[in-house]
Each structure stands twice: as C-alpha cells, then as structure tokens.
C-alpha cells in the first residue's frame, strides 16, 4: 500500500461504463445514432434499392 498521489488517483479513476452513464450527451449521441443507422438509414436504403416496375 502506498500513499503516493498518483496511485490514489488511479484508485479513484471512474470506470468507463460509469463515465458513459454519467454523460447525458454521449448517451444522447448513441441513442440517436444507433436507431438512425439500423432502422432509418438501412430501411430507406432498402426502399431505394427496390427496382421500379416497368
């Protein structure tokens, strides 16, 4: 055990998942991007690729 300030800082480092959950704007970004890409963009691309009837 050591009282060195650097190791203390390392001990108190907030986990990445906690940082994600504490960042509303990062959550907003992924919450918009995932459905936009998977549902809207992919869906619109599928419709655009339907051949037009002769």
């Amino acid at each position, binding site marked *: 055990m050591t009282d060195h300030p650097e190791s203390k800082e390392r001990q108190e480092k907030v986990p990445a998942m906690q940082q994600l959950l504490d960042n*509303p704007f990062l959550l907003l970004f*992924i919450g918009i991007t995932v*459905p936009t890409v*998977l549902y809207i963009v992919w*869906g619109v691309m599928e419709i655009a690729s*339907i051949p037009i009837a002769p």
Partner: protein
Amino acid sequence: MTAIDASYAGTAAGNFRTCRYTGLKVDSAAQTLIKANAVAAVIFLAVGGLMGLLVALTRWPAVHLLPSEWFYLILTGHGANVLLFWIIFFEIAILYFASAVLLGSRLATPRIAWAAFVLMIVGAVMTNIAVFQGDSSVMFTSYPPMQAAPHFYLGLIVFAVGALVAVGVFFGTLVIAHGERTYEGSIPLVTFGALTAAIIAVFTLASGAIILVPTFLWSVGLISEMDPLLYKVIWWGMGHSSQQINVAAHVSVWYAIGALTIGAKPLSEKVSRSAFLLYILFLQLASAHHLLADPGMSASWKIVNTSYLMYLAVLGSMIHGLTVPGALEAAQRRNGYTKGAFEWLRKAPWGNPAFAGMFLSLVMFGFIGGISGVVLGTEQLNLLMHNTIYVPGHFHGTVVTGTTLAFMAMTYYVLPLIFQRDIIWPKLARIQPYLFGLGAAGISLFMMGAGTLGVPRRHWDMSFTDAILQFELPSGGFLMMGLNGLSAVVASAGGILYILITVGTVLWGKRLDRGEAPLTFPLHKRAATVAEYGSHATVKLPGTIILVTIFFVSFVLYYFVNWKYLSELWLMR
C-alpha cells in the same frame, strides 16, 4: 423537514421553496410549468378517453353506436389525443420534475419552456380542429395515399417541435444542475430514467418532423406524391418510439413511487442503469414491428431490428421487471414485513392509490403488454395477428395498463407535492386505480382474444354486412368484442373518477402550503431517497423470485402456444 414550506431566493435566477414533505427544493418556474403541462395532459386524456369509449361502443356489435364516418373521425382523434397529446404533455411534466425538482436545480430557460408549451397546445388544438372538421379521418397512422387536411399535419409538426424544445429545456436543466453542483456524483435513478425517455423523445420527435413536413407539403400540393412504404418506415420511427418514451418514463415512475410510498431504493444502481442503457440503444428499433408484413423490406432488416437487437431492449424490461418488485420487497422487509415469502406484498399500502396503481401497472404491463409485444415482434408469429385487433389489444396493454395507469398513480403525489393540494374523496381515490386497471386489462385481453380469432382492427362493421366478398367471423369474436365494450365502460368509469378527483383536488383540495396538515396518502419517512443515488444491495428476495418465475413460465408457455397455432396454419407435410 420544516413545518411550513420555506421560500427563499436560490442560486442565479431560481426562486425556490423547500417541500415540507420531502425536503426537496422546488423551483417556482419548474413548479408552474409542471402544473401547466399536467393540466393540459389531463384535458387531452379526458377528450381522448371519451373518444375511446365511443370507439369501443361502436365496435361492440350489439351496440354499434356511431355511423361509419363518425367512427373513423373519432378513432383518429382518440389516437392523437391519448397516444400523443396526453402522454407527451405528462412526460414533459415528468422531465421537469425529474430534472429541476429531483436535482434541486432551477429550470433552464423558463421562457423557452413556456414557448414550447404554447407550441404544443397550438399544435394539439390545430390537429383536433382538423379532425373535428371531418376531412382528416385518416386515423392515427395517417398512411398515404389517404390524405388529411394540411392543418392536421401542421398541428402535429408544431406539437412535435414544441415537445422537442421542451426536451431541450430538460437537457439544459441537467447542464445547469451539473454546473451549479446542485447534486453530487451521479444523477438519481429516476432522473436517469427520465433522461432515457428524453433521448428516445429526441429520435421520436425528429422522425415525426422528418416525415410530416413532406407529408404536409404533399397535402398542400407542393409535392406530387408520397411513397407509402417510405412514409411507413419513417412515420413509425415516431409512432412506435413515442410509446417507447412511455416505457422509459413509466419505469421511472415505478421507481419514484416505490421510493415515495415505502422508501424503496434500487437493488443495484448499476444494473438498473444498464437496463435503461439497453433502452437507449435498442428500444426504438421496435418500430420495425409495424413493417413485418410489408414485402418491400428484407427479412434481414426485419429480424435484426425486431428480434436480435430488440430482444436486448426486452432484456432491459425484464431486468426492470425483476429490480422494481425486488426493490419493493427489499424495502418492505426493511420496514419489518419479513414473514414468509409474501408478507411484504400482503401488507403493502394497497389503500394508497399511488402504490396500487404503480403495482397494477407493473404487473399488467409485464404480463399483458410485454409478453404480447414479444410475440407480435417475432416475424413468423406476427403473421397470426398482423392487422387484427390483437395489435390494439397489445398496445392498450402497454400504453393504458402500463403507462396511463402509472401516470395516474403518480398524479396522487403530483397533486400534493406540486399543486400543494390534498387529495379529495380519498375513498373514491382508493378504488380508482383498481377500477381503471380492471377495465383496461379487460380491454387489452378481450381485444387480443378477438384478434386471435381473426377480428380485424380499425373496422367499423365486423359482420361485413355490405361486403362484396362475405366473411363470417367465429361467434367467439363477437363475444370478445362485447366484453371489450363492457371493459371499456368499466375503464371509463375509472377514467372519469380520475378526472373528477384530479380537477376537484386542484380546485377544492385542502391547501397544503400553510399549516401543519398531514397528507391523506402519506409519504414514507425515507421518501427523499427518490432524489438520491444508492443501492439496497440485497438478493434475499424470495417473493420476487417466485413472482418472476411465474412470469417466465407464463411467457414461455404463451410464446410456444403461438408457435403451435402457427404450425397448425402452415401446410407442412
């Protein structure tokens, strides 16, 4: 806790009082806006609920109340008023409560919040006017090539923009609270749930604006045609996701009421937040359910969206389905109800309409709305019920027994804590959630039963009297629709009671902003946990484990019963 609400000037522009019951700091601007949005919500619930009763009485074959033109007009108004206006006004009230009040912060830009409110009111009224003028009976989905009057779409756009601005005010309030250090560490779980709802709302309202703007231009002749499939894909980004805002919001309400009534803390903040994260990532993808029978979309798009990824959001719901009753059991055991597996449940405050409504909402959302949603979302099983009245049965299980009942339950604390009026007619208030819940459950189950027998949705005459191609539905379908009508009458009685109690309390309820008056439906002494971060951290929950096991067995049985039905339809020899 102070004896009398203490008013004082807060930081920056805030003007706060301290709630004597919870100890929470309440910003006066936030309080007034919560009141305004809640009142608007209740008005649109009254209008939309009455329309729902008329729809049910028309679909009740023995009554068949309305002529066809009026039926489709009323059905359109019912959808818009309850699925959008009631729900979103109340959700904006929840967002302001969960940000400004729970974080003890001033509300960001109150003037802009008022502008948002005015836009929402103008939009909702404009859409209602268009519906009642009679040339916009396109139903809630308004699929092209059916065309409504331009102000029908314009009203929805204006409403969506207003709601989007209000969601921006919520995010702004989070920034202010963080910047002014009104809380330490992470935001409370209820606020995190509201944040989830707000994120889904941004996607929802943006999708609505994206598709309704060209549809409006089409209605005024500036665009020659609308692609029906493109419309459906983007419109359902709004239509279904708006119901996912509800899910996140009412799960937050479950946690909030658990804290307020019995002092419940989350079992694990990390687990509950991870479940909300699954909502943020995947819940909106459920929109693809509505296109499972459309030939233009590939099986890959359908299955990835509604099965592989959507099931991760279902996992989130099942986590909440464990952690919410688990938190209640843990709190009740700490409160001294430790005998056997279910003393905590038997001796729960069932006479408190907030708790009763919350628990009924929790159970019925899971058993009725949740299980049927997974069945409908399975591409193959969807063929059994697509476009039958099973679909409204499912979403009445989510939006009415789940969200509406939860919001009604929350009202029993919004009234004393925000309006500072004590609930009038406590005996009637005690039975209200049971009456409404019983009726709403009946509506959902009987519509799902009728849909399983093939009764179509949105159809004025299920006997197909004047149809060129005659078709006779099983007599059980007629019985189910009659029982649905009866259930709607019961639910309406519960709904009318809710409106009367709410309006009566606002107008004539005993004032709580002075004196030492106790609440008719008291808060738990640890109610302030609603605004705190922290876990109960226990797994000794025998009652919850039994309840969850019953749920899983029901889920599995119902899922496979539907595969059995499907196997009987397919000619596989």
